[in-house]
């Protein structure tokens, strides 16, 4: 295809991606170096029969004029990145010079908002991605040996947790784990602890979020693995059987190697998707116990006055984290392309 025709065909799509993905990234970089204007203060002297008082007030008109002239705020350099809501350099220094031991220092570090969110996001990604892969794989293996007539119905129901919007799925779970909800009561009955509440404890709230993550990710994994299972070469399976390989050995030596490249790709997709975890935190009302990088950005923008600078700095740090996560896969794509060319 000539370059000119190619350009014309791809133009709308590229333009959309450049304007609304690449350019916003630039805008985020710029925004992260600015911070909201300091409050313009005026001294006002009010006098009444008992004497005069000077008060300090926010000058609303001056603020308005300032915001109209420089909507992006004032230049702040890297200070937003280093402040308490982000990398918290000063706080870290105090914590680690005063901390009696590693454990105390670590726990104080993880109480800082950014590190707390980073920890949750990483743990969520690391826990939920492999578990989803495993659960999806088990479902695929099981459905594969069930009679064919059951497949349509099983696939239909299995698709539901994935098709339903994440935040809506999380809500339906949330209503069930209510203390008097069906799951909440069941857990209380099982543990014999009438005060047990999934919503009250931090660890249980995390566990619930992980469970929701696996629940909503497994269907996608199942569908892809199930399709791949149909393409496992039959000849190799038969040959393995003739050679006396047991069912488990055939799974380990024939089926798994066949699925390995797909599993790698699925893992990449799962990591990308899980790293942006946010909606389930809202749906499960777990903001008190868990915050992710995405939820930091959301709530910075959603406050009474949107903190553009702070949200942008968190966004930049998120993008850097994602890049580090994706680097191995990108390297592999590059070497794969080079070896093909």
């Amino acid at each position, binding site marked *: *295809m000539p*370059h000119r025709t*190619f350009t014309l*065909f*791809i133009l*709308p*799509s*590229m333009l*959309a*991606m450049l*304007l*609304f*993905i*690449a350019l*916003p990234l630039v805008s*985020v970089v710029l*925004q992260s170096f600015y911070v909201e204007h300091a409050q313009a203060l005026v001294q006002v002297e009010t006098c009444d029969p008992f004497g005069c008082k000077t008060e300090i007030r926010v000058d609303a008109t001056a603020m308005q004029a300032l915001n109209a002239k420089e*909507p992006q705020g004032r230049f702040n350099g890297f200070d937003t990145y280093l402040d308490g809501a982000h990398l918290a350099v000063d706080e870290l220094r105090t914590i680690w010079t005063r901390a009696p031991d590693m454990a105390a220092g670590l726990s104080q570090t993880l109480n800082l908002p950014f590190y707390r969110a980073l920890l949750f996001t990483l743990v969520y990604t690391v826990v939920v991605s492999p578990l989803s892969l495993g659960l999806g794989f088990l479902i695929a*293996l*099981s459905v594969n*040996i*069930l009679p064919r007539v059951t497949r349509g119905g*099983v696939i239909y*129901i*299995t*698709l*539901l947790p994935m*098709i*339903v*919007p*994440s*935040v*809506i799925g999380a*809500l*339906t779970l949330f209503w*069930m784990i209510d203390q*008097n*909800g*069906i799951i909440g*009561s069941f857990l209380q009955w099982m543990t014999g602890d009438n005060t047990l509440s999934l919503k009250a404890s931090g660890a249980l709230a995390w566990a619930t979020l992980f469970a929701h993550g696996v*629940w909503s990710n497994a269907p996608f994994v199942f*569908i*892809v693995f199930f399709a*791949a299972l149909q393409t496992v070469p039959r000849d190799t399976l038969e040959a393995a059987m003739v050679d006396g390989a047991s*069912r488990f050995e055939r799974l380990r030596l024939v089926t798994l190697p066949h699925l390995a490249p797909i599993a790698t*790709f699925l893992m990449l997709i799962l990591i990308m998707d899980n790293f*942006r975890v946010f*909606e389930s935190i809202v749906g499960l*009302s777990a903001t008190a116990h868990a915050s992710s*990088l*995405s939820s930091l*950005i959301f709530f910075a*923008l959603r406050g009474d006055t949107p903190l*553009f600078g702070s*949200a942008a700095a968190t*966004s*930049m740090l998120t*993008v850097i984290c*994602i890049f580090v996560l994706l680097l191995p896969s990108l390297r592999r*794509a590059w070497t794969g392309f080079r070896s093909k060319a």
Partner: protein
Amino acid sequence: MTGSPRAFRPPVYLVLLAAGFIAVWLLAAALPFVWTAWGSFKLQGDFFSMVSWQDALFGPRTQALTGSAFTGQAYYDVWVGQGFWRQALNTIVITLGVTAVSLTFGTLGGYALARSTARYAFWILIAALVFRAMPGLTLVSGYLLPFFEWNLWGHQWTTIIVLVALNQPFTLWLLHSFFLTIPRDLDESALIDGCTRLQAFRLVVMPVMWPGVITTGIFSFLVGYSDFVICAMLLSEDNQTMVPKIIGFLGTTQQPGQVMYAVAATVSVILPLLILVLFSQRRIVGGLVAGAVKG
């Protein structure tokens, strides 16, 4: 599996084990929706009973107050009383817009990527994959201030184009892989017969691409229909879509019945999806597989 050798057939204990496992999974997958749908026909005092979870099953308060174990009160309250139909209309606009624009951009781009042998085509696909990894919220923090400044905020078409752009990477990958399944000879013979590229695309390739387009269209539909973050951030109160509105119901102060707005609205949002999956299960499965395996 008919016609398979006997020895391939799994032993009975394994089939039973698999059946048991699948039964547990299906319960986990469906119960939240069944439970919510059931509870949406009760009063709040029953579905969120302080006394016992069994109240949600039998509905003693619902029976005492309405004379029947089921009531459509929550649906009436939310659709009529809270004007949820407005959000439903907004969702239709956003969803149709996203699907139409996304497919137009995506088929053109996906076709070019599938037919080009140049090295940059590969790099565009890799760049799309990297773009796909960007969480929507990191980008929203880039849009918000310029959109406020240029008065682009709160318009439906801004939201549509943003949603299209954010999902263009996936759309491109999917359509690109569908176009690859159509033999090159088809459009090349059309070119030899004197068609321009656009004519070959429009008159020869697209007519055999419908399955791929419909599959991709379903995914674009789901993007517009399900989105929470972008719509919550970029749409104003009066053109808000359904999903963010439901979260809005929860955010307001807890008055009696308020939670039931969210419950009834949730069931209302899920129902069209159940119907969609019923009719397009094969296409959804095919699309997921094409996007993951060939991509």
